[in-house]
């Protein structure tokens, strides 16, 4: 019978994580030395994994929609003492399209998902 207890006590090595054979102690020492020397360690975007592949790390898959949305909302606020001397703007041009064609297009688009 297999010794499940023994297996569960083995260290868990995540897939696609640090490669086997990499000297973690040496790496830790290197980082510690760099920090203590005040030398800037190049920052990589994203979490370092998958064998430290530079290309993989360069792609930041973090979803920044929330902060972008907040920033967009802040852009709508008028700051300072802004003013204008108009309430409406622009010239007007009236055009006429084929009514049947427009109606058919609206019919077709009304049935489409967004």
């Amino acid at each position, binding site marked *: 019978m297999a010794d499940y207890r023994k297996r569960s006590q083995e260290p868990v090595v995540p897939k696609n994580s640090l490669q086997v054979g990499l000297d973690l102690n040496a790496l830790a020492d290197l980082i510690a030395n760099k920090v203590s020397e005040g030398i800037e360690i190049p920052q990589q975007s994203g979490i370092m994994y998958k064998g430290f592949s530079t290309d993989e790390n360069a792609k930041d898959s973090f979803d920044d929609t929330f902060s*972008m949305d907040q920033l*967009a909302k802040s852009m*709508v606020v008028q700051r300072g003492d802004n003013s204008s001397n108009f309430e409406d*703007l622009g010239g007007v041009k009236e055009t006429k*399209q084929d009514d049947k064609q427009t109606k*058919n297009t609206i019919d077709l688009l009304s049935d489409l998902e967004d």
Partner: protein
Amino acid sequence: MSEDIFDAEELGIGTPETKTEVKAEVKVEKKYKPGVGVDVGTSNIVVARQTEDGTFINRFHRDMLYPLDVSEEAIDLLDRSDYLYVKVGKKYYIVGEDALRLVNAIGRGEVVRPMQDGILNPNLKESSELLFYIIKAVVGDPVVPNEPLRFSVPANPVDKDLDNRFHEMVLKNFFTQMGYDAKPVNEAMCVAYDCAPTAKTDEGDMPLTGIAISCGGGMTNVALCLKGMNLNAFSITKSGDYIDDQASKATGVASSKIIKQKEKNLDLGSFDMSDRVLAALRIYYQETINRIIFHMAKEFQDKNAEVDGEIEVVIAGGTSMPTGYCEMFKQCLDDSELPFDVWNVRHSNTPFYSVSQGSCIRAQADYRKKSK
């Protein structure tokens, strides 16, 4: 005011005593169908509504500004003229056609734009403040509560690392604040909704199927559509402004004067080498058209886009307005290879208004969907 800076006669304005009284505009209330379309372009903002009798009412505004530092001279100039302006921080910005007139009359400085390459101008700090003053004045209020509004947005470009998500969010927030139920719509697809291209297949005509192209100031937008669905869309940042800039660099003539020449005298059907500005404009127009066709072939081939039968290409946008544009496009298309058979190339009946009208059609469809 020092007359050597602003010459009243040259600027077409009177002295305070002779200033013409502006007549109040007579407003005729029209009954609009709910659903408004907005084309927020680099060069122009166009807003379309449709009346109950089917007429599109397009309100348009030239998206240009001429900055003036707040000074006694500037205040005096504005007092003596009918120029429309926005004051943001320590600057006045003359808006619209007057900006172009003023820069041509003064002969120095350049007009600035709140939009660049189809999105908010990152080089103009006050771009969002300025654009919103302008949009609010051109769009007006909703005709029903939470009225559907569609605003055109470009697809991400193939020739520049630009993400238009932020631009889209800023506009959506602004229209929402104005009381609209606002959604973005691809600019080229608007041209498809307005011009309704058809494909010829063995089973008969297929509606809203083909390639739609919107040739704007900052971008050219291209979409391949099938029965009203957007199959693939992209944009190219070298468009009308690029043509103006290149012609300006080649001839040493200011961009504002190039624009004037282009809008008044350019005929792409005749190669007039005697006028260096017109010659340069024609050369860059041809280059821009060839670039569109090159990217069309590449993009649609790369994405393995397929449509059965022969498709129609519809073209609109301010940059497509010079005489002979569509013929030049057809010629360039004949000299190239596309992964589709094209049975017709058609210019919009209303090239300048196609994007706004298409957005309006889409917004009306939204309203119908909501009312179901």
